[in-house]
């Protein structure tokens, strides 16, 4: 009989995902950032040689060329490289956590609809430690929302309290905005959030959000972690009710700004576009 591990297909190993030391020791190509720095150093050396030669031969052209090479060498080594992680790696890292949440909900056989609940300011409950702003609550049975909200703050609720998958991202967006989302008006958020997502964090190419009559609608185009969203859409307990990290972070932000419980009603991924509909409970 074959060992169960033998029947598994081997995981694909991508050369660019390997650590730098491994890549360098095997003589394989260097990572992009290292390559940029190497080019920068070569430009600096050539620029230095050009400048020295210009002094020796009294050549204006050589001086211009040398100085320009030094400038571009400095730009390549100091300005251009930045720490980037391939979105594929981030997707692989986050997918396990999402899968774990999906499995927990499945194993506990929870039937309720997940609700993003704000923790009232100044409220401290020892069993809500680690959930300082908002949390997701899933009741055991498909009960009324009001009953679920009451259950959520009890010591031992008949359901599950979860840290939202997008909480850290919502915190990051709040930090980058240098504002407190609790003090923000909804209109200000509609103006601020697209800039934060498209310019500051460059999470999506285009982002729009509208809040009207207790409902919010967010549209994102070409999201950086689109593959993760596609992966999450296959986890039926995650998508659409809890959401992928991005839709979940928007739910967290809406919870903070409105100070009301939020339900992620639907989430649709098609043609590089993610559409999410939220309900703001009164």
């Amino acid at each position, binding site marked *: 009989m074959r060992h169960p591990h033998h029947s598994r297909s081997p995981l694909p190993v991508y050369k660019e995902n390997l650590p730098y030391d491994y890549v360098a020791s095997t003589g394989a190509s260097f990572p992009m950032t290292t390559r940029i720095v190497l080019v920068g150093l070569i430009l600096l050396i050539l620029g230095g040689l050009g400048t020295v030669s*210009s*002094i*020796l031969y009294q050549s204006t052209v050589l001086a211009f060329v040398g100085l320009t090479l030094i400038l571009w060498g400095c730009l390549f080594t100091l*300005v251009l*490289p930045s720490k980037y992680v391939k979105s594929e790696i981030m997707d692989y890292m986050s997918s396990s956590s999402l899968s774990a949440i999906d499995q927990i909900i499945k194993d506990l056989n929870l039937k309720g609809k997940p609700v993003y609940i704000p923790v009232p300011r100044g409220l401290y409950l020892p069993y809500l430690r680690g959930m300082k702003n908002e949390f997701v609550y899933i009741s055991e049975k498909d009960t009324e929302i009001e009953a679920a909200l009451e259950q959520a703050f009890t010591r031992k609720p008949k359901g599950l309290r979860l840290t939202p998958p997008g909480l850290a991202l919502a915190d990051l967006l709040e930090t980058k905005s240098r504002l407190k989302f609790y003090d923000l008006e909804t209109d200000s958020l509609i103006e601020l959030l697209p800039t934060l997502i498209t310019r500051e964090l460059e999470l999506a190419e285009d982002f729009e959000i509208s809040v009207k009559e207790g409902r919010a609608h967010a549209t994102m185009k070409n999201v*950086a972690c689109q593959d993760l969203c596609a992966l999450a859409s296959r986890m039926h307990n995650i998508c659409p009710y809890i959401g992928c990290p991005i839709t979940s972070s928007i739910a967290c932000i809406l919870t903070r700004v409105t100070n009301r419980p939020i339900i992620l009603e639907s989430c649709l991924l098609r043609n590089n576009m993610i559409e999410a509909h939220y309900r703001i409970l009164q």
Partner: protein
Amino acid sequence: MELIPQFPLTYLDLMLWLAFNAVLLLTASELLRSLPGKKLMIDKKRLTMAALASGFAFVIAVSVHAYNTWMTLQP
């Protein structure tokens, strides 16, 4: 007497070079800023800072030159 080799560019040449690079970098940074998404692996903020620094250096160079010219015109 042995002549010490001197740098062949004058102050005005350096100013011209600085202006050219400042314009190039500022244009590049503004164009990149309007480009959405991570299409290029460039830290746009740092590039903008470098462009502004070179532009500022050019303004200072011009100010110094203008001050020197004004001083020479004084009786």
